[in-house]
């Protein structure tokens, strides 16, 4: 035990975020009081962030298996087979708390962490996406947060050299004190070259590689497992500092060492740093590990064992190397000017043994820190607030006096408006694979040397989740899959990032449980396995929880890259068709949020069978070469989808549309409902398209024609909207910028 270590007491354990019961359990496991270093290990490994102790019982519901799944949850990232010897690695993670405290570094290190999760599996990262949520766009603090987060993501990803190909930015007052920064990454690996985070082979040396260890980020995992109180900014020292240049070197060095075959197992030192790696890696392999901390490269003097084990300094990896091949690893890392130091060995006794200058400072069974971490099944309760919200009928509000003004307001709403301000700060093309750049329903990337491409997207409509967590979460899965279908892709796998408030509140845990049920149900119906993910609880500030936000990241495959389809209209004369049912609602809609500043009502029901058929029909039409564009009608309803299809492409093209009346005009224009896709069909393909839709047995109809310098929307023969493309483009292109410019 280090001489300067404080005495471990119950009070100290409580201050570490452990409960009294958990502290008792630690004493029972050890048969004695823990050392200070051991207390640190338990508090980090048993934190919600590492142990999923409140979520585990629910997460078991998720479907995770399918013939093409090569790696499901439990590793650094999930992996699916793409054929042709290739596999796709995917993972999404949150960096919400750090990004609120220090937006630039918080978001940047979020990117860094997810990149390492991908390349630790042996894959080269080929794309990132980011799903962001902020509070009131009018608030200067929001502008500061957006600026910081976007430039942090931009800085890290651009310097590292990975394209950012999509994502979302949405606003709601509930995120004011707790913005969300979720980053997804996908990478490519040969399916026979996959690496895992397992400490196999007793006697194999353990190498520390990458950046040096400092005091940054100590207890980041614990911080991420607590709600915010006033003065959260004082926690800035718990935010790590990123160095994308070192990360790039680490990528190249790791991939080179892996290619040579010297690496047995590898894990990123992310949350809970060395503590996490040195216990999780042996735990997965049924082995133990011993480490000597005096050998760990440090950039600060006087660091204690506790600090070294818990530091979350970035750009570091722990490698288990094949015995006898140590020199090979040292040479490769020296070439990339990185530290690679042997700090320990894999042992056979199932213990994590930590020494400092030869003196034992911690000795714990690895399973006690990992598999045997507490698992809770806390009470859930349906929130009392839902009944009143559901009772609200949006049609009790008056119809807007001016539909053109209403549409322009929606298009200029920052959640809907063009996010070019964001993505033009991100490199979108490095790697020369990006076939569809940000700004369409999904990003599409080719796989060089094959005819294939992958499509990637993220999705979540938190307002719908708030009003109905089960259906809202199912809808997020459906929408993500629909985005892929619109791009021409067949969904392969989900990675999720589940952002919620405190699970210790029954209402929040109910939201979580319902959302998991919704995701599971939708994934089963659409046959998409969940292969990786992340739970982010405690997204609350001063008792106010965020909207429940399960973000769905999804990747899909296009067997033929030539199938890729974008959302915007292409040629005058193309017929416009709406595939999907008429069931829509203004409950929880963007329309209600923007025009009435209200979050209430009931969203339209989701029929997963119809959803599946509509997506299949859209894909079939794309694969048969029958459509020029396909766009999912989501936030803002059909009117917004049509306006986006008119102005989001390289050249604006108008349209004249007769909408099927669904009752009141606001419902017809702006009502939101699942399973709806707007496609444009060239005249030559019209017949074929008609018969294909018949075969697919989905509701569909032609609703108009592409062309003209205006967007004209009619209902029952009367013109409700006739706007010039310039007016539409102006509203949509400047709506976001006016808050951030």
């Amino acid at each position: 035990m280090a001489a300067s270590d404080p005495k471990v007491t119950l009070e100290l354990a409580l201050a570490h975020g452990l409960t009294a019961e958990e502290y008792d359990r630690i004493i029972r496991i050890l048969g004695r009081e823990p050392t200070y270093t051991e207390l640190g290990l338990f508090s980090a490994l048993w934190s919600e962030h590492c142990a999923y102790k409140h979520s585990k019982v629910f997460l078991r519901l998720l479907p995770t298996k399918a013939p093409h799944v090569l790696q499901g949850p439990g590793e650094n990232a999930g992996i699916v087979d793409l054929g042709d010897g290739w596999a796709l690695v995917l993972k999404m993670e949150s960096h919400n708390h750090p990004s609120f405290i220090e937006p630039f570094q918080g978001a940047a290190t979020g990117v860094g962490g997810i990149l390492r999760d991908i390349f630790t599996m042996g894959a080269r990262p080929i794309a990132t996406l980011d799903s962001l949520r902020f509070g009131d766009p009018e608030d200067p603090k929001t502008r500061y947060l957006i600026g910081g987060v976007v430039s942090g993501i931009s800085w890290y990803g651009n310097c590292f050299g990975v394209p950012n190909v999509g994502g979302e930015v949405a606003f709601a007052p509930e995120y004011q004190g707790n913005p969300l920064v979720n980053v997804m990454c996908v990478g490519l690996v040969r399916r026979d070259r996959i690496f895992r985070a397992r400490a196999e082979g007793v006697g194999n040396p353990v190498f520390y590689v990458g950046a040096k260890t400092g005091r940054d980020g100590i207890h980041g995992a614990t911080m991420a497992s607590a709600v915010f109180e006033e003065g959260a900014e004082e926690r800035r020292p718990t935010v790590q500092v990123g160095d994308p240049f070192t990360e790039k070197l680490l990528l190249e060095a790791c991939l080179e060492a892996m290619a040579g075959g010297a690496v047995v197992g590898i894990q990123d030192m992310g949350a809970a740093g060395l503590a996490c790696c040195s216990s999780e890696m042996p735990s997965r392999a049924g082995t133990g590990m011993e480490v000597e901390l005096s050998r760990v490269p440090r950039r600060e003097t006087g660091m204690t064992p506790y600090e070294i084990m818990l530091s979350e300094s970035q750009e570091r990896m722990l490698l288990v190397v094949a015995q006898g091949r140590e020199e090979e690893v040292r040479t490769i890392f020296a070439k990339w000017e990185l530290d690679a130091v042997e700090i320990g060995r894999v042992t056979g006794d199932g213990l994590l043994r930590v020494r400092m200058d030869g003196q034992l400072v911690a000795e714990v069974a690895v399973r006690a820190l990992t598999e045997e971490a507490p698992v809770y099944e806390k009470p859930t309760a349906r929130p009392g607030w839902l009944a009143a919200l559901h009772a609200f009928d949006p049609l009790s509000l008056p119809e807007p006096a001016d539909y053109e003004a209403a549409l322009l307001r929606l298009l200029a709403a920052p959640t809907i408006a063009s996010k070019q301000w964001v993505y033009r700060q991100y490199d979108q093309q490095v790697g020369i694979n990006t076939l569809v750049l940000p700004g369409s329903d999904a990003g599409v990337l080719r796989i060089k040397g094959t005819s294939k491409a992958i499509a990637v997207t993220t999705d979540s409509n938190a307002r719908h989740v708030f009003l109905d967590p089960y259906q809202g979460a199912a809808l997020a899965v459906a929408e993500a899959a629909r985005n892929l279908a619109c791009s021409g892709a067949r969904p392969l796998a989900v990675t999720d990032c589940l952002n919620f408030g405190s699970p210790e509140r029954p209402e929040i845990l109910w939201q979580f449980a319902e959302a998991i049920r919704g995701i599971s149900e939708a994934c089963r119906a659409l046959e998409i396995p969940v292969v990786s993910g992340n739970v982010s609880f405690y997204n609350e500030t001063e008792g106010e929880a965020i909207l429940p936000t399960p973000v769905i990241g999804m990747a899909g495959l296009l067997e033929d890259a030539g199938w890729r389809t974008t959302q915007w209209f292409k040629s005058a004369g193309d017929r416009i068709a709406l595939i999907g049912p008429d069931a829509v609602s203004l409950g929880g809609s963007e329309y209600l949020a923007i025009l009435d500043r209200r979050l209430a009502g009931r969203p339209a029901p989701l029929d997963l069978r119809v959803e599946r058929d509509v997506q299949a029909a859209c894909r079939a039409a794309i694969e048969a070469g029958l459509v020029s564009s396909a766009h999912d009608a989501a936030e803002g309803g059909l009117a917004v989808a049509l306006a986006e299809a008119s102005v989001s492409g390289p050249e604006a093209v108008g349209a004249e549309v007769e909408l099927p009346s669904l009752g009141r005009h606001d419902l017809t224009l702006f009502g939101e409902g699942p399973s709806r896709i707007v496609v444009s069909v060239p005249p030559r393909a019209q017949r074929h398209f008609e018969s294909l839709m018949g075969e697919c047995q989905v509701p569909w109809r032609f609703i108009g024609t592409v062309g003209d310098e205006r967007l004209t929307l009619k209902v029952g023969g009367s013109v409700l909207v006739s706007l010039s493309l310039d007016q539409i483009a102006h509203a949509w292109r400047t709506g976001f910028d006016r808050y951030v410019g």
Partner: protein
Amino acid sequence: MRFGVVIFPGTWSDCDFHYVIGEVLHQPVKYVWHRDTDLGDLDCLILPGGFSYGDYLRAGAIAGRSPVVEALPDFVARGGYVLGSCNGFQILCEAGMLPGALMRNECLQYRCQSTHLFVENAETPFTRGLRPGQVLKMPISHGEGKYYADPETLRTLKARNRIVFRYCTEAGDVTKDANPNGSLENIAGIVNEGGTVLGLMPHPERAAETAMGGTDGLLLFHSLVGSLVEDGSVLKR
């Protein structure tokens, strides 16, 4: 024609150039490590985009003093061609191989977008296959691409016809709106006195296939390969 693509720590357009030269143009190409100084078997050296040494200190500053860059004057004196794109252009300026400097974009943000380039000089080995006034479409991706040179240097560049590309509109008008980074007089690319060292901020390797949105970047390589064929072989070894 034998190409070499330099890798500095932090380079990321190396694979893209390698792919385009090898797989699209079918020319011999190899990687050159930043510590290598033996460039004897190469005709053209590419300094690709990226963040060499993290662009810490200044973009390209550290790479501009690396062994491979220090070997460039000899390579050029022997008739070798050098193409620096993005970070490569920044490195060439930092190394004094090209005049001027690349400063932080005027908008103070990174910019990744499509740009149009007005071909000012169609007599360099890189632009020989183009027409003066031709408009090329090529993307940019940088945070520090605002070209600056003092008035004397600018006069020289103009007098010697060393400004090769300027940012322009799709129609070919060199306007302020078409300038993505605040570059002096919309300058996007320049050559050395001999015309054999080209630096440009845009990415020709990202505009080399129809699937990537255009092939105008290939025209630079076609010119280059054509130049070599015309001359017999360039390197007077």
